[in-house]
């Protein structure tokens, strides 16, 4: 009897191993077991499109990187999951001192560069010091202002080696000190993907542009970079970090996302479309999507980068230095109808600067400050000395060219028409080339404009901070400045939230800007692209969550290609 059982069991095992009904678990090159419904390994390739790039490294240039499709071969201190929660990355843990001024990050000892060197505090210190050095001419040098001596270093007043980033007791302890308590510092450390000190010193700033000199400590390595054509990332077999990916390769084709991505997606050449700001769908694209039931199912809308579009003024000079004029404008614009008729699917009405879902957003509290009311608008303008718009200068509304999609230009025209109809003011619309626009805005010389801002990290200090009088807008309110400055460095979350709430209310009441809509961008992905991060988040929203498929998020590492791909790819 026992013998028979042994024979039966052996036969069953042989059968089970050979039978396709019991497939053995497939592991990819990095040793991660693929989900049961995953397509064979050779299909585990994600194809996306991005703008051509000068570098892939954050600390070399922020604006000349590929849009949102980089940092796969670096390991930031922290990453962000789809619920916008920080998760450990190069730092396995972090803590803050009692006074809130000193942050200690404990680095993961399992992470090595592909040249065999361990990733240590030295690489982070090197990268930050480089960024703080005015000689490096880094294009995001304003960003790390809370770090001790940062501002002084970028102004050239102290040496970059004096900034508050130091090694702790051992090479795996990184200590960051700040000028004032900055509870959002770990959030800022999303942007900390380091350069390899060794490779930089040996090959120069662009060592990552060539597979021969490129060095990775992240989930992928650089396999190919053909200028103006494509970049190919290959899975890093020796990756020791926490986000071991499923995908064997990521192919980033270069193309103008606005001009080519949707067409390439329809032709089956790329798998995801619309993940970056420059890939907003035009009204015509949306119509194509809405009419096609298959495409409609592939279309998902999310928070994007919590971007708010708004009208701004030069509040330092007439006529907008008179708050009544700005209030008249706020009453004269019917935001709801703009959103319902022009923006439609791509956004929601904005009542403040912070989009619902963003920490501290307060749409209900701000909703009724200015509601559309042409009569009140007229009255206020008359009180300001311009009855029926008489004597009011004709305006030239600038729209920044990189944001001037057909939808945004349509909104600008609608606003112009409303101001003419309700206040008798003539408004000309000018789409202004980005650099000219920003040069004028930053110089506080722009009279009237339509622009947007998307967040860098999820904290009120980031979004509201740009409205401080030291920022880009020609609007100043002492109480606002004080509130934002103080709240930014508060550790008491409740009090902090209250102060930010008050600040945002001042911004809306004093009409620093007129907030029109929050963008809820859509993204298309093919039915065979699956993964944990593409399933609903804690708000029930299924979308590509910021930062999209960039390596500082966790999304790209949760994505795999399912067997359905066999129906689509040849």
């Amino acid at each position, binding site marked *: 009897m026992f013998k028979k059982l042994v024979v039966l069991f052996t036969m069953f095992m042989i059968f089970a191993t050979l039978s396709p009904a019991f497939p053995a678990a497939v592991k990819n090159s990095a040793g991660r077991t693929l989900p049961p419904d995953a397509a064979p390994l050779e299909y585990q390739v994600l194809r996306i499109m991005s703008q051509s790039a*000068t570098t892939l490294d954050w600390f070399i240039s*922020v*604006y*000349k990187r590929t849009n949102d499709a980089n940092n796969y071969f670096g390991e930031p201190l922290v990453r962000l999951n789809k619920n916008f929660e920080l998760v450990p990355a190069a730092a396995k843990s972090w803590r803050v001192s009692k006074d809130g001024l000193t942050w200690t990050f404990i680095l993961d000892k399992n992470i090595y560069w592909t040249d065999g060197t361990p990733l240590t505090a030295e690489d982070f210190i090197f990268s930050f010091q480089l960024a703080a050095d*005015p*000689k*490096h*001419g*880094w*294009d995001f*040098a*304003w960003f790390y202002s809370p770090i001790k001596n940062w*501002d002084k270093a*970028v*102004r*050239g007043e102290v040496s970059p080696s004096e900034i508050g980033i130091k090694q702790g007791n051992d090479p795996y302890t990184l200590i960051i000190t700040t000028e004032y308590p900055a509870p959002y510092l770990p959030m800022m450390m999303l942007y900390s993907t380091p350069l390899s000190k060794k490779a930089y010193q040996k090959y120069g700033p*662009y060592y990552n*542009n*060539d597979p021969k000199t490129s060095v990775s400590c992240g989930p992928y390595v650089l396999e190919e970079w053909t*200028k*103006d*054509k494509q970049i190919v990332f290959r899975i890093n077999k020796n990756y020791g970090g926490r986000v071991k990916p499923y995908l064997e390769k990521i192919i980033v*084709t*270069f*193309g*103008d996302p606005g*001009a*080519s991505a949707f*067409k*390439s997606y*329809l*032709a*089956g*050449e790329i798998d995801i479309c619309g993940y970056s700001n420059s890939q907003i769908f035009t009204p015509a694209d949306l119509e194509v999507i809405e009419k096609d039931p298959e495409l409609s199912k592939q279309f998902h809308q999310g928070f994007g980068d919590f971007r708010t579009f708004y009208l701004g003024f030069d509040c330092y000079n007439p006529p907008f230095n008179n708050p009544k004029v700005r209030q008249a404008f706020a009453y004269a614009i019917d935001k709801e109808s703009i959103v319902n008729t022009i923006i439609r699917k791509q956004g929601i009405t904005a009542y403040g600067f912070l989009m619902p879902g963003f920490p501290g957003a307060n749409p209900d509290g701000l909703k009724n400050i200015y509601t559309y009311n042409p009569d009140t608008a007229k009255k206020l303008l008359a009180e300001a000395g311009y009855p029926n718009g008489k004597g009011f200068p004709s305006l030239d509304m600038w729209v920044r060219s990189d944001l001037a999609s057909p939808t945004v230009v349509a909104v600008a025209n609608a606003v112009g028409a409303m101001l003419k109809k309700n206040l008798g003011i003539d408004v000309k619309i000018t789409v202004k*080339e*980005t*650099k*000219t626009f*920003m*040069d*004028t805005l*930053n110089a506080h010389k722009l009279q009237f404009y339509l622009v947007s*801002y998307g967040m*860098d990290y999820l904290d009120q200090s980031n979004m509201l901070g*740009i409205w401080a009088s030291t*920022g*880009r807008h020609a609007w100043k309110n002492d109480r606002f400045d004080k509130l934002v400055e103080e709240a930014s460095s508060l550790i008491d979350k409740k009090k902090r939230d209250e102060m930010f709430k008050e600040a945002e209310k001042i911004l809306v009441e004093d009409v620093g800007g007129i907030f029109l809509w929050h963008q809820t961008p859509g993204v298309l992905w093919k039915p065979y692209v699956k993964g944990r991060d593409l399933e609903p988040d804690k708000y029930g929203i299924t979308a590509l969550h910021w930062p999209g498929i960039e390596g500082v998020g966790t999304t790209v590492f949760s994505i795999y290609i399912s067997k359905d791909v066999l129906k689509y790819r040849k």
Partner: protein
Amino acid sequence: MLGYILRRVLGLIIVILLASMIAFFLMHAVPGGPFDELKMPLPEAVKKEILKKYGFDKPIWEQYLNYIWNALHGDFGVPFQSPTETVLSLIARVWPVTLQIGAVTIFLSFSIGILLGIISALKQNTWLDYLITTIATLGTTVPNFVIAIWLILFFSITLRWLPTGGWGEPRHFILPVMSYLLAPTAVITRFVKVNFLEELRKDYVRTARAKGLPEKTVIFRHVFKNALVPIITMLGPMIPDLATGSIFIEVTFRVPGLGKFFYTSALNRDYPMIVAMILLIAVLWGITYLITDIIYAYIDPRIVFT
């Protein structure tokens, strides 16, 4: 003749110097610079270092003289968009792509245009003539980027025969060339037709026919030659036009050619690239016109250089 050519070359050099000067000074007069301040203003010290790095902290005339001096030594600088190569190596990398597409387009548009033009002239006022005229009118009126979108919709999205863009395989040629092709082909067709009809009405044709020459000989030996001479005038300007590419076509089809750099260089305030591209165009146009004029003198005995 040699004196004439020398005078023209001298003129060309002056034109190039003037073009570089205008480009250089205009470029620096435009707001913005080779730095990005998309979100927030950059600290002054950082901006100053960037300007210093590119030598922009010096007086503008000094910058210009430095530029010309370096350019005379073959150093056109480093493009801001691609700092791992020089302006010359970038142009050497991307220009051949545009030239290849341009050459194929010129060859095809002339072959097809001449053929259709002749057919249209010989079969004047028949359905064939009307059809060709309709296509030619469409070709001259519909811009090439609209044609490009139609082609992508039909061949890439509906039929899935051809890629929507890219570069490196022969099939990547087809759609860009087709988009470029229609307009010049249409113009050549119309031009050839008109010239042909004009020649057909001339006395020597009547004489040839009266002598009893077969129609084939009349058309191909006599009319053909005379009708085609003016086409050289058309070939001239087409060369620099196609040799510098089109931003619309190259961006639409993701062709890594020179065309898109005219646009991206201006947007990025990539000063070394902007001046280099303007010089390139000036040289191309100058040389093309010079060669056209010389060829003319050889073909048309009525032209004499003084």
